[in-house]
């Protein structure tokens, strides 16, 4: 199975199949994220803008972890959208990525989900996503190969999703 980074690289060189795989994988995440932050009348439009933006900016991708890169792209788009919606949206923009924008239930849920993971997987998720360590840094810290780390991280995220869906 191909990694997101491999798929993105193939997408850059014109593979529609690779685009389709990324689209199918990330669509539920993108939509849920937007839905929580936009009014219903704005959600569909922004969802479309996200994918068009990815398509337009795909040449800028240079092999970094795809998830965080794509997330930054979505974040910028949301900020632009809030600005275009005017002043009333400014509060929402300020709260968009602020800790306070998450409810206590959200925080508890994330902490619970993390606690469900085995310790090594939990540490890996925390280091990669919360401490923003690169694969290179993780490789030298853990002694595991980058391929192995990607596999473990992918398994951990699947585990988190499964716990979330329960």
């Amino acid at each position, binding site marked *: 199975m191909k990694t997101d980074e491999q798929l993105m690289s193939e997408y850059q060189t014109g593979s529609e199949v690779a*685009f389709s795989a990324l689209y199918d994988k990330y669509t539920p995440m993108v939509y849920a994220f937007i839905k929580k932050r936009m009014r219903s009348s704005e959600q569909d439009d922004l969802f479309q803008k996200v994918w068009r933006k990815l398509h337009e900016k795909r040449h800028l991708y240079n092999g970094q972890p795809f998830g965080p890169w794509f997330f930054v792209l979505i974040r910028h788009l949301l900020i632009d959208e809030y600005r275009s919606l005017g002043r009333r949206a400014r509060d929402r923009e300020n709260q968009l990525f602020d800790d306070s924008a998450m409810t206590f239930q959200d925080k508890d849920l994330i902490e619970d989900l993390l606690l469900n993971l085995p310790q090594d997987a939990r540490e890996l998720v925390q280091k990669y996503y919360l401490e923003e360590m690169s694969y290179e840094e993780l490789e030298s810290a853990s002694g595991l190969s980058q391929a192995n780390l990607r596999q473990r991280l992918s398994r951990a995220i699947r585990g988190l999703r499964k716990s979330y869906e329960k």
Partner: protein
Amino acid sequence: MKNKAFFEFLTTKELPPVALREAVKKDISLSFHLHSIVLRFLSFQLLGA
């Protein structure tokens, strides 16, 4: 916090309506073929001329 928002992004899923999902996919898929469609159109125009 960016990290928490990103974490939420990774762990929360909801499928959009099928019509929206298909429309966006079709829109991007079309742009893969746009170049060849334009080239074909231009070559028809040239041949026609």
